[in-house]
């Protein structure tokens, strides 16, 4: 077993050092719909200043065509899901005869919400993601069925709520009642998992900008979620992405929507404090 581990470890190390030639994020500026100037590069937040000086949106690590596709709402296929979620926003569902709009008016009233999630909920006494908050509304205010955490309907709604905050800086609170959850997330971020024994940091902090096989490693920022991936041509949730990464280290993964991933989402989001909300963004 030890031998196999070593071989796999060597493969991982080779993969991580193979493509130094194309290092570095692309120099480019993201202007949304020729209107909103997005912050895709900025100074790293204080809490991680010992790890890196500058943070980059994953947008900088994608090819020129993919970057262009995200700069126009018509070209961005993720906006189809946003339009469908807009219909859902205004549609009454559940036993209470309410839609989202019954309490919140237009979806643009959600501007400023995405930048601060995940967030401590005083009422619930826990840190919640936007998905949990949406399902709480559905169950307890609307009397409607919960949506599947990583499903298309849920992620469309998250994308709609994110879309009205595009251009606003990510700004999650990491102190106060959220602090212990944030610490847990930080610990997970630096914990090596799986047969490949890789932590989030091994790829996204130590080796961003390098090539992992044919892929350009980003800093693993999640300011662009939900993400429309060219690979599966649908919106992908933060937790599904985490699950994919943990699985790729050849580990048993945590459950989407569960405490571990909530903690990790809070921590990883905080590593992007200062970058613009981009969701729905486009990645490969």
């Amino acid at each position, binding site marked *: 077993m030890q031998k196999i581990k070593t071989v796999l470890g060597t493969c991982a190390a080779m993969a991580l050092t193979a493509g130094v030639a194309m290092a570095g994020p692309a120099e480019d500026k993201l202007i949304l719909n020729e209107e909103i100037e997005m912050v895709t590069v900025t100074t790293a937040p204080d809490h991680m200043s010992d790890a890196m000086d500058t943070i980059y949106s994953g947008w900088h690590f994608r090819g020129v065509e993919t970057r262009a596709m995200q700069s126009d709402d018509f070209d961005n296929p993720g906006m189809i899901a946003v339009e469908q979620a807009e219909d859902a926003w205004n549609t009454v569902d559940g036993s209470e005869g309410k839609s989202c709009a019954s309490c919140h008016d237009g979806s643009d009233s959600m501007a400023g919400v995405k930048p601060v999630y995940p967030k401590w909920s005083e009422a619930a006494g826990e840190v919640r993601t936007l998905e949990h908050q949406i399902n709480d509304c559905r169950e307890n205010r609307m009397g409607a069925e919960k949506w599947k955490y990583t499903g298309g309907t849920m992620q469309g709604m998250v994308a709609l709520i994110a879309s009205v905050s595009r251009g606003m800086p990510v700004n999650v609170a990491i102190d106060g009642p959220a602090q212990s959850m944030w610490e847990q997330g930080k610990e997970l971020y630096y914990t090596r998992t799986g047969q490949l024994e890789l932590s989030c940091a091994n790829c996204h902090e130590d080796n961003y900008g390098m090539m992992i096989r044919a892929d350009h490693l980003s800093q693993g920022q999640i300011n662009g979620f939900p993400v429309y991936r*060219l690979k599966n041509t649908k919106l992908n949730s933060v937790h599904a992405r985490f699950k994919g990464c943990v699985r790729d280290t050849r580990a048993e993964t945590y459950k989407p929507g569960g405490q571990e991933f909530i903690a990790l989402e809070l921590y990883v989001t905080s590593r992007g404090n200062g970058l613009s909300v981009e969701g729905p963004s486009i990645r490969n």
Partner: protein
Amino acid sequence: MQFTRRDALAVGAGAALVAGLPIRAMAMGDEYIEAFTGGAEVGEGGITLTAPEIAENGNTVPIEVSAEGATEIMVLALGNPVPPVATFKFGPLAASQDAKTRIRLAKTQDVVAIAKMDDGTFAKASASIKVTIGGCGG
């Protein structure tokens, strides 16, 4: 000169390329090209096919075809299980014979665009597109 195992492999691969692949690729494309041209000669020039040299993902590859004076442009992906991709027919109100779309490529391959010009001649352009695999999951 030493003849190493690596050289042998390289020669072998080269031979396979010469012997096998082009013939198969030609056969794949030819059938569709002939149906489009009716066997007429296909020239070069007068048509452009713009595509990324390296596609980030084969599922969504942006391409653009342009051929001034064309009535139709057919696009083939020679390495796909089914080569035809699309045929653009330009009507009287087309301001240019230019179109963009997004296509699927099963693997690294050549994409070919053939224009039928309004004088009845045909022109061809091709692009070699590398389709990459992902980092971990593939």
